């Protein structure tokens, strides 16, 4: 990237309404040497080098608080990083033209074939079906070839979180409701499974098979979603966020404190999946793969059903509400009903995940439903591209996989530091997510141009007066 293009971009991308007066005002101020872009860039790069040194440097201890700082700032590492920073800066500032032309060149070369692939993709339905079948086959049978450890991760974490993310996508991606308490429904699902299989201190009227618990859990979560949603859905944006967060905290603390009902922090032991039809019986045991296939069935089913919703009147109504609730209501869309519907559908997906999870791990405690997970699932959805099923699938799968993979490369304690940095960087470069939905992409483009707010999570707008 060259200086010229970057400054041109700067002028082009900044919205005229803020830059024009700003630059006018800026001209009036005296620009000191260190405020010049070039030197500011150097300063920022040096700061970055120091940060990277801290990130990769010595492990601190509480015994000697200054140990890490001392080591980091006196060791060789700092100088290496600073040298890299200066080198990068120099290349960027003084060899900009060469590098940018090289980049342009490769872009041109790759643009041709990519365009052709895209054309074939959109033109031929058979190609699309073929590729989809291949992907599905890979998803179903591929994991047979990986280590059992990864199979476990795939089931316990990736598949479960993918299912959760698909559910949350309905709530936030389609209906635009900022839900920071989604894992509460997951917990309700898991505890339903525990209750109906007779694993809690309080006994159910009849102990059921795990599969039979599924519809009950869906129903329970549906009701819970409506109970939470009905009074809160007139709240908007951040208010809804904090209320859902509060709801999560309340559910979590209930699970933790109501020892007599939920076993509290001791946790619950749940039976695994099993089928007994007389002529055919099967038990899910320790091998992760049967659970995986079961979860794949759930996921595919959820995707299939939800895609129909997205392209129906319900999906359109959600989009309308997300974009402009007032206009949607004026057009006759019962906004509260549709929001409740989104909440309930999301919640019931979460319920399925809860039952599947409880029946897979066999033992869980309230810490499995900590508040951080609600926040993480949200991050998965938005990282992948909210509103887009492929995006959400990718986001959840990738971000769950990444920390596990990072284990091999960095100190496991630091994994979430890198994940956090990745989230920040991603959001700066691809705010729409990795694989955004078409609608969402348009909304963002319009928002950047200064039209509309791009999501319904804006400041509260109460009904007047």
């Amino acid at each position, binding site marked *: 990237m060259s200086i010229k293009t970057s400054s041109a971009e700067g002028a082009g991308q900044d919205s005229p309404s803020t830059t024009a007066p700003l630059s006018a005002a800026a001209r009036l101020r005296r620009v000191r040497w260190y405020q010049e872009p070039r030197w500011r860039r150097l300063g920022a790069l040096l700061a970055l080098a120091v940060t990277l040194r801290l990130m990769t440097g010595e492990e601190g201890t509480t015994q000697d608080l200054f140990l890490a700082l001392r080591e980091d700032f006196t060791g060789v590492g700092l100088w290496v990083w600073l040298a890299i920073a200066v080198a990068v800066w120099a290349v960027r500032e003084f060899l900009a033209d060469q590098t940018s032309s090289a980049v342009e060149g490769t872009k041109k070369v790759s643009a041709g074939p990519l365009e052709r692939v895209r054309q074939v993709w959109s033109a031929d339905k058979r190609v699309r079906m073929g590729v989809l079948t291949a992907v599905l086959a890979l998803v179903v049978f591929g994991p047979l070839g990986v280590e059992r450890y990864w199979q476990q991760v795939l089931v316990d974490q990736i598949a479960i979180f993918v299912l959760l993310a698909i559910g949350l996508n309905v709530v936030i991606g389609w209906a635009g409701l900022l839900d920071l308490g989604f894992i509460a429904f997951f917990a309700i699902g898991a505890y339903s499974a525990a209750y109906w299989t007779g694993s809690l201190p309080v006994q159910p009227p009849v102990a059921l098979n795990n599969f039979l618990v599924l519809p009950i859990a869906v129903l329970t979560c549906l009701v819970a979603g409506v109970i939470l949603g009905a009074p809160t859905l007139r709240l908007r944006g951040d208010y809804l966020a904090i209320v859902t967060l509060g709801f999560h905290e309340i559910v979590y603390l209930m699970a933790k404190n109501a020892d007599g009902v939920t076993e509290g922090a001791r946790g619950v032991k749940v039976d695994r999946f099993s089928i007994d039809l007389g002529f055919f019986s099967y038990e899910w045991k320790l091998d992760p793969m049967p659970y995986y296939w079961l979860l794949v069935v759930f996921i595919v089913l959820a995707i299939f059903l939800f895609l129909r*919703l997205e392209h129906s*009147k319900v999906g359109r109504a959600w989009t309308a509400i997300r974009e402009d609730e007032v206009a949607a209501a004026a057009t006759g869309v019962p906004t509260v009903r549709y929001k409740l519907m989104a909440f309930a559908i999301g919640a019931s997906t979460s319920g399925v995940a809860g039952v599947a999870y409880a029946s897979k791990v066999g033992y869980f405690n309230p810490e499995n439903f900590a508040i951080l997970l609600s926040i993480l699932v949200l991050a998965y959805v938005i990282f992948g591209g909210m509103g887009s099923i492929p995006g959400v699938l990718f986001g959840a799968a990738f971000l769950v996989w990444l920390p596990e993979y990072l284990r091999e490369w960095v100190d496991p304690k630091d994994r979430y530091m890198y994940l956090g940095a990745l989230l920040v960087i991603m959001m700066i470069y691809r705010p729409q997510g990795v694989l955004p939905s078409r609608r969402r992409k348009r909304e963002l483009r319009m928002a950047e141009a200064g039209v509309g707010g791009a999501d319904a999570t*804006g400041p509260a707008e109460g009904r007047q007066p």
Partner: protein
Amino acid sequence: MTTETVKKEQGPAGGSAGAGELVLETSGVTLRFGGLTSLDNVELRMRRGEVLAVIGPNGAGKTSLFNSLTGAYVPQEGRIVFRPREGGEHSLLGAKPHVVSQWGLARTFQNIRLFGALTALENVKIAAETRLKSGPVSIMLGLPNARKAERASDRRAHEVLSYVGLLGKMNELAGSLSYGDQRRLEIARALATDPEVLLLDEPAAGTNPTEKLELEELIRRINTELGVSVLLIEHDMRLVMSVADRVMVLNFGKKIAEGSPSQVQRDPAVIEAYLGAVAEEDEAAVGQVVAEDVSGPAVRKAGTREDAGTGAGTGTGAEAARRDTEEHE
């Protein structure tokens, strides 16, 4: 305001059946925001099949009146009654907006509020679907009634789009249409709900002369061909004069006049309201002043936090801040 005023003029009511019967009636509607009275004891009587225009300077309470009629605002006092064709009556005071829409009142917005990231067709379908019965379960399972509903809404949306002349642009994004097309799409969206009364909030604002003419014709067609009663807020006097059967004038939240377009135009109170002390009878001048006023909403920041009507609060706030800044600079 007395009943005499209403009886006084006999505007040419639209040709549909039941003409003269009141379709929309308000009395004593008063709406306050904090200390600010936005609507003050407003009486409105709208006959079935007529085109009634509401005019008045900016901030006169026209949009507040619309918002009160459609359930977006709940006035503190008064009575708002809507009488649908099939008989009976609904109180609109405090009714939920979507219910008002389903009863048969549809509206457009002063600062166009389309669903910009959806196509024109989808925009209209959303409106067309609100009366169709198909639940999420039947949709997910792909049951026949869901498919039928989908086809019905598709057909209806195509119909409406072709009626307003946007069929050729149905797959374009609403946000990328031209200003005039957006205005028409908004009308189409309102029409798709099958309304008995259509509330148009400054449909001509920001459109060019050709578009204005087309719009004029469209409103007339909607009124006569579809038998929809039209309540119109408009600043463009030429448009008002040509389509309205009757005109009602608001100033500072109060009704100051009502009558046929020509009557109203000559009303001294109206001229006073528009021009202050200068008594000027030239309609053109009135039109011009009003046209200047109109440019306000068009440049207003899109997606503003406040809708029209609460704008007063923001204005003073921003002004206060501006004063502060100046003081300290």
